[in-house]
């Protein structure tokens, strides 16, 4: 089992996640030329070593994550939210709900610490 330290939920088995794919791909603008779309859709570096990839925490917070993982040893070196602005979005949700801040523990920087407090700050529908 690969253990993924979700910035929102803490350390979880990879079986809770769905693998997205190569996280280094930048999809071009909708009206970009065929060549750009061809490359983004069909060409892969297929790295043997540390690669950036997306995972979806389907059986958890349902957030997309950007994970740096070694494709040979499966070792994970960093996990962060795929949506850079997710901290800001959650902060405003928390402010609306009269809660604290979130962006201090989850942001665009790799998250390896503070996830326990992070998960306790995630808005909990059951409380509302």
């Amino acid at each position: 089992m690969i253990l993924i330290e979700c910035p929102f939920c803490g350390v979880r088995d990879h079986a809770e996640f769905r693998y997205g794919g190569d996280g280094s791909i930048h999809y071009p603008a909708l009206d970009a030329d065929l060549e750009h779309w061809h490359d983004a859709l069909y060409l892969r570096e297929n790295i043997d070593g540390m690669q950036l990839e997306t995972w979806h925490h389907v059986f958890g917070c349902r957030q997309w994550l950007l994970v740096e993982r070694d494709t040979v040893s499966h070792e994970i070196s960093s996990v962060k939210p795929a949506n850079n602005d997710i901290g800001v979005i959650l902060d405003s949700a928390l402010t609306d709900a009269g809660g604290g801040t979130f962006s201090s523990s989850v942001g665009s920087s790799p998250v390896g610490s503070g996830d326990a407090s992070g998960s306790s700050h995630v808005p909990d529908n059951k409380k509302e």
Partner: protein
Amino acid sequence: MARYSAWSVFKNGLTGNRQWARAWRDPEPQQHYDVVIVGGGLHGLATAYYLAKNHRQSRIAVVEKGWLGGGNAGRNTTIVRSNYMLPGNREFYEHSLKLWENLSHDLNYNVMFSQRSHVTLMHDPGEMDVYARRYNIMRLTGSDSELWDLATLKKEIPHLDYSADARFPLYGAAVQRRGGSARHDAVAWGYARAADRLGVDILQNCEVTGFTRQDSRIVSLQTTRGTLEAGKVGFAVAGNTSRLWSMAGMGRLPIESHKLQAFVSEPLKPLINHVVSFAVGGALCYVSQSDKGGMVFGGDLDWYKSYAQRGNLPQVYDVAEAVTSMFPCLSRVKLLRHWAGVMDMSMDGSHFICKTPLSNLYLNAGWNYGGFKASPASGWYFADLIANDRPHSVIENHDLDRFRRGIIIDERGAGPDPKLHG
């Protein structure tokens, strides 16, 4: 090296089987070869054989970093079928099946090809309609196909779960009688021996570590057994294709490497006489019984990209659940071994047998889960491509550039996500 025959078995039996000659030579690398095939799996070995046999090429080497058949060749679940539907694929796989039917004779080596029927289980009328269409299209290419109703399925395979509370109630089956399985090691050894007899040098423990290029040509290959000059070079390295590709100084490919596991149980008395395959929603498994009695089965990929030849536990559970929901009688059978291989998953689930941006480099890759059955035709068409420096019409769209031309050979209709193809 002598031909194998009933007489040779008898004669060697008289001398206690101590006089058998080795099956192929273990030559020292020559300095120059006309053709160097990288990868001593089934595809590389078959290519060398057909280059020598069909095209009378000489000075051919197959270089293999480990031992023959140590890659996916020796790790697969050995299912052979030709139930492909799309143009190009169906001619290719039907040709492959025809080559299988005569392979033991052609190679003078018993590959234990057993046409025990490939049975795809159906669970509802809609699925049956889809398969009726697919299997009728196969008939246009001369393949065989049958649809079984529930009564026939019950008679043929009595041990499936037909009970009222079955997890996946059965409706019928789509069947290819000429499908079946073969002994994977024997296929590797048979091609190796037959190629060797035609003069091909098989160089084991010979890893390619670099290339010397002159403009758009490969001049020589650096290997752990010295430098080899090559007139033409062919890659047939399955899950390692991207590694070799970047070693040769090229960029990205429409391929991702994923791992697929397979399993074998303790030996049982004869129980399943067919190859049985089951797929509903996200569950997939395929089961057959080996000649030694073990249940050989597999399922889906481990879902995340990997170059590791070892599997992960969640997929063991998933596949075991699928198998036992189809065959509840296997629920208490013990697993003996499980392992994984690195698959060259392509962007549309179909293969590449094609020229490359380098003028004397040819590519054979993108086999997904299906490259065992493809081995004979893969070697046949790859040899034809290398010898004639142009693709045969059957594989003319199986090139790297097809996506750019809008030609997507996607049997599953899964889209450009390699892990979703099978």
